[in-house]
């Protein structure tokens, strides 16, 4: 009963305020009398409620009940704004902090500035206006607050609003034919999309990631979805434990990612080839990869590793035990730089998680051999490097051997890939190639060092001979001159 009373009072207040406006606003009085659509929509418009007349946007004299006077050009009547005039008209108030304050609004006043910098501010195909105006998203006569579920920009409505253009191949073709138009379809399959469909307005929708007024292209370094910025965009929600407390999912992914080999490459080194969140989880269809598809996801970049793993005996074993493939050894968000220590039977090796001298012994033996081979290649490469450096410091020309040493390094890199085959024979072939190269380089470097000492010895002998000659000649000259 109390609730019904409050509701009636609210209706009464709206009607009273509407009458007040009506009395002052002859535009509304006349048009509502005609029963046209704009005036019918305008009654719920936030501007109408704030006492803003039609003339604020259309111009003219709203106080005159004479149509010829009210809609006279000399009184500023402009009719229906077209093109960019729509947004500039909105910006007259929405970019003015003073005006907005007068109406008791706490809205930001940079929307127009932001919009002008956005992709939507590009010139439309007519060549006369921006692609999107304020009314494109917010509507015109029935504009309500973003917090009002009736607003087209209310979280639950945003995806529908954006997809009106972005899901239309015909429309998008005019501006960016390469841009996919299936974002909405993908979104529906994502965790975000599914929860959104159930009315959860906390999950991410278009504006959560892309922003609203200042939407920039993915290639723009200032964009929220630029690869190097994307992890921070995702982290806005996914690192907020309070925001996600009802979802029962971890919130430490970003902290782990920052320290991972991928995170360091992307965020510190600005290496855009390194994966951001979307590269593994998808973007519009974001969802955690399933256990069986992890190697496929990682394999999009680490193709050889994935291929070798799929052909290896581990594939079957992992599938049987339902172990996530790459993740079992390398982890997921906090993937660290894979060192040679991961292989083998020592304490820091991953292999011993499943293999030991008493359990899965064949793998244990293979791991032990592989590690021995890696260590051998590493030490041979190191010796070659030291010898080359020594020869270089002695001023010897060893550029060719130094160049050749790259092949040993290459073999080491290949061995790190080949380890995913878990095949001792194949692994040994690669490592042997590297050891042979390292041996050749060592030989070349040693020859150069020997040559260095040979030159010095040669110089010593030559100096002795020349000195003997000089002394002999000097004595001979003295004898000749004495005679």
């Amino acid at each position: 009963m109390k609730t019904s009373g409050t509701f009636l009072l609210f209706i009464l207040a709206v009607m009273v305020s509407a009458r007040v406006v009506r009395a002052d606003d002859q535009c509304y009085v006349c048009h509502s009398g005609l029963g046209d659509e704009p005036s019918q929509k305008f009654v719920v418009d936030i501007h109408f409620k704030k006492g803003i007349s039609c003339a604020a946007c259309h111009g003219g004299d709203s106080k005159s009940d004479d149509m010829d006077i009210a809609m006279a050009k000399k009184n500023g009547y402009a009719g229906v704004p077209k093109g960019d005039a729509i947004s500039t008209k909105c910006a007259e108030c929405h970019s003015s902090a003073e005006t907005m304050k007068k109406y008791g609004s706490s809205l930001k006043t940079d929307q127009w500035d932001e919009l002008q910098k956005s992709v939507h501010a590009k010139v439309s195909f007519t060549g006369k206006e921006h692609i999107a105006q304020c009314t494109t998203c917010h509507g015109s006569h029935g504009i309500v607050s973003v917090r009002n579920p009736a607003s087209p920009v209310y979280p639950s409505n945003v995806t529908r609003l954006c997809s009106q253009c972005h899901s239309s191949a015909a429309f998008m073709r005019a501006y960016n034919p390469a841009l996919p138009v299936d974002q909405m379809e993908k979104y529906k399959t994502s965790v975000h999309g599914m929860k959104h469909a159930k009315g959860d307005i906390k999950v991410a929708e278009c504006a959560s990631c892309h922003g609203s007024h200042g939407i920039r292209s993915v290639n723009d370094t200032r964009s929220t979805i630029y690869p190097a910025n994307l992890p921070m965009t995702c982290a806005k929600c996914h690192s907020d434990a309070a925001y996600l407390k009802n979802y029962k999912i971890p919130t430490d992914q970003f902290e782990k990612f920052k320290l991972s080999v991928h995170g360091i490459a992307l965020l510190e080194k600005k290496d855009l080839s390194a994966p951001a969140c979307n590269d593994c989880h998808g973007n519009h269809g974001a969802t955690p990869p399933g256990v069986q598809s992890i190697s496929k996801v990682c394999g999009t970049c680490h193709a050889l590793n994935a291929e070798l793993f799929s052909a290896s005996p581990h594939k079957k074993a992992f599938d049987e035990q339902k172990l996530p493939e790459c993740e079992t050894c390398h982890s997921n968000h906090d993937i660290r730089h894979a060192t040679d220590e991961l292989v083998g039977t020592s304490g820091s090796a991953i292999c011993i998680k499943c293999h030991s001298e008493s359990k899965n012994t064949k793998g244990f033996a293979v791991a032990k051999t592989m590690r021995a081979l890696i260590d051998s290649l590493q030490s041979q490469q190191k010796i070659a490097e030291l010898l080359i450096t020594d020869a270089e410091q002695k001023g010897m020309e060893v550029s060719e051997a130094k160049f050749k040493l790259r092949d040993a390094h290459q073999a080491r890199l290949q061995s790190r890939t080949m380890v995913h085959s878990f095949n001792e024979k194949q692994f040994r072939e690669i490592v042997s190639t590297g050891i042979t190269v390292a041996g050749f380089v060592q030989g070349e470097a040693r020859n150069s060092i020997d040559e260095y000492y040979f030159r010095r010895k040669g110089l010593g002998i030559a100096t002795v001979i020349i000195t003997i000659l000089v002394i002999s000649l000097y004595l001979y000259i003295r004898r000749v001159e004495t005679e």
Partner: protein
Amino acid sequence: MNKFSSRVYQWMDERFHLSDAIDFMKKKYVPVHRHSVWYYFGGVSLFLFIIQVVTGILLLMYYKSGEDQAFESIHFIMSKVQFGWLIRSIHSWAANLFILAAMIHMFSVYFERAYRKPRELTWFTGMLMFFVGLTFGFSGYLLPWNELAYFATKVGTDIAGVIPIIGEPMLYFLRGGEDVTGATLSRFFGLHVAVLPAVFTVLLGVHLLFVQIQGMSTPLHMQHLEEHEIKKMPFFPNFVLRDLLLWLIVLNILAILAVYFPWELGRKADPFMPAPAGIKPEWYFLFMFQTLKYIPGHVLFIDGELFGILMFGLGGLLWTMVPIWDRKSAEGKRNKTVTYFGLLIVIFIITLTIVGWLV
């Protein structure tokens, strides 16, 4: 002399009258005084030139001209050819020591007034050889086609291009086009191994002939002495043996330099790369390079760089023409102006070279 060598000598003497030449040399005397040491630098220059010819011919067996091959061929010589590193290093070091020895020889002749009558032509041929020697150095510097050589040649030929009227055609002639390219390398190579050696050999022959005919110059302060009062030594074998002794020492110095400081090859020239910082010419051009840096943009109404080049040209001409304008020395009188002018030049060159090296 043993029997075999006596028979060889006799065989040669019958045909070429060697004994006449030896008798001529035996009768030839070299004055002995406190400045006699300077006489040896002419011989040292000759020895270094001979080394240049020998090592140059050896390098020619492997060197390939052309922007795609020059650097690679020198790299091959330095790393693969037996003793190639030694030959190339000696060639480079001997080139520098040759310029140094020639400079010392030139200044000693100048301060001793050895250019005075009747040795004006000996001085002129010597000066021409010195300029040819500098051109040898400039042209040879580019042949490895490395970064430093490329940009030093670019800067050097740019400076030549500043000279009015003849500058631009000369620049085109030297470079074989607008820029330093493979065409420039071919020209410099031809100049270095064909034109300059031919010109130098002719000048050297004439120079040595004059020295042999006229003998060594006696310093001014000994001119008033009677013939029997002048202390002398026979040219052969005494002076020749001393020359030989010095040559051996120079040879040893060259070997030490080549082994301990092998001449670096650097990086291959890349015309599209910016010039490396601190690019400098060879040390014997450094004083001119440094001076041009200090000259303001404009001197009176003349471009600063052009003014500098004109001044160096004028200075070089004045220096070369000293036997003409120094009349006093020709008459056996002391000429302090010549000494002061020479000292000024020496101090100027040494100072600017050191500054150029350090800056």
